[in-house]
């Protein structure tokens, strides 16, 4: 499975989801938390604003080797994400991807109820926030967003919907090049437009795209999107020569990266320290039944590493388990004692 193009099959569009644990943030900490909840026999749902798993890894550096994951001398970002998804998969987590958690309220029993911007309501025994640096928002195309939903997209969760199209991909990162390679066999044409002459994407990915014969147009910006109803063409302009061209396009993919901020979480009444959530040694926040783990937490001596996030989320989920069921043991047992 590719973290940049595929969504796990359990994605649910249900309007109401009942679960034991809701994890907000599908980065490495959140995915490991999904495994841990499943390992404890808890039902788990994972919500993330991005339409893909992996959080910052998938969005920013899927091709980077990571050297500080215990047991892996070197692991490529996307391989780590794939492994985490596979580790949680036997427990059937419900993925609520492409959904931003916007509101926290309580049901009549005081249990958390989280609403997403797409209208999903999740009732949970406990919430674990693994939101990293916050909610990612795609950088808008400077030429405008008038054609959003009418040919202009930020993500390519299902490449087949662009079959037969002339496609212009804007950006120079891994997502832009990955989508160029993925869409090439389906599209009538694919062109990649980048405003610089250097790319953030991994060199091997760039070479792959070149070898597919995809035209890479550098030092060039998209200046206009045109089409009365659906997108029909885009105009581009060279930054130095100011030469303009018009390209046929039924799809333009704006892969210009992201900005991140805490977003709606800031209004949930959580005790914050700077732009992070204060937690105690149980990873409990200031709100009942709400825990946090990973880069988003803060306490004296905090070290922001994926390795630390793994440990914190295990602490958070196991403590949440004892809140959901006061009879439950804090210690989950050793995984070696369980048969798969």
């Amino acid at each position: 499975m590719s973290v940049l193009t595929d969504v796990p099959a359990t994605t649910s569009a249900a309007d109401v989801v009942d679960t034991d644990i809701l994890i907000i943030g599908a980065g490495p900490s959140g995915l490991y938390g999904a495994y841990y909840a499943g390992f404890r026999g808890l039902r788990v749902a994972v919500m993330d604003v991005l339409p893909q798993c992996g959080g910052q890894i998938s969005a920013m550096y899927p091709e980077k080797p990571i050297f500080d994951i215990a047991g892996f001398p070197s692991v490529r970002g996307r391989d780590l994400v794939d492994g985490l998804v596979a580790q949680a998969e036997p427990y059937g987590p419900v993925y609520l991807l492409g959904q931003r958690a916007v509101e926290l309220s309580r049901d009549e029993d005081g249990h958390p109820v989280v609403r997403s911007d797409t209208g999903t309501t999740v009732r949970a025994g406990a919430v674990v926030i693994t939101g990293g640096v916050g909610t990612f928002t795609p950088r808008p195309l400077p030429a405008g967003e008038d054609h959003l939903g009418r040919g202009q997209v930020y993500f390519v969760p299902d490449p087949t919907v662009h079959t037969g199209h002339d496609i212009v991909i804007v950006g120079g990162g891994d997502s832009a090049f990955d989508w160029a390679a993925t869409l090439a066999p389906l599209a009538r044409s694919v062109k990649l437009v980048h405003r610089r002459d250097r790319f953030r994407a991994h060199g091997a990915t760039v070479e792959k795209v070149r070898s597919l014969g995809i035209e890479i147009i550098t030092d060039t910006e998209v200046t206009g999107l045109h089409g009365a109803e659906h997108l029909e063409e885009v105009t581009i302009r060279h930054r130095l020569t100011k030469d303009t061209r018009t390209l046929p396009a039924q799809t333009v993919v704006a892969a210009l990266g992201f900005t991140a901020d805490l977003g709606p979480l800031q209004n949930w009444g959580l005790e914050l320290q700077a732009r992070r959530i204060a937690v105690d040694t149980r990873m409990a926040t200031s709100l009942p039944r709400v825990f946090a783990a990973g880069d988003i937490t803060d306490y004296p001596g905090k070290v922001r590493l994926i390795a630390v996030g793994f440990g914190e989320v295990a602490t958070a989920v196991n403590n949440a388990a004892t809140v959901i069921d006061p009879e439950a043991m804090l210690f989950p047992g050793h995984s070696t004692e369980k048969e798969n």
Partner: protein
Amino acid sequence: MAYVIGPACVDIMDRSCMEECPVDCIYEGERKLYINPVECIDCGACETACPEQAIAVDRLAKPEHREDNRRFFTEPLPGRTEPLGTPGGATGLGPVGVDTPLVAGAAS
């Protein structure tokens, strides 16, 4: 960990890095840009954006500039009584317009 902007930025300030930074943690002095080491999430987006190749990850950066980037935020800048600290975003703050003594005194 954080990324660090080195001396190649002085008097150039291309600002491409500021457009790429997902957490808006690159602040503008008078002659140079500075990355807030507390706010940086270590993604590396700025490193490739810089046409001067002035940006490096901290362990590979010149120690002198690693410290100087930190000082821009932790020590009061010339003419100020309070350090910048962690403003939580450069856009809201705007150009600071002052440099650290090291950068202010650099040969042009």
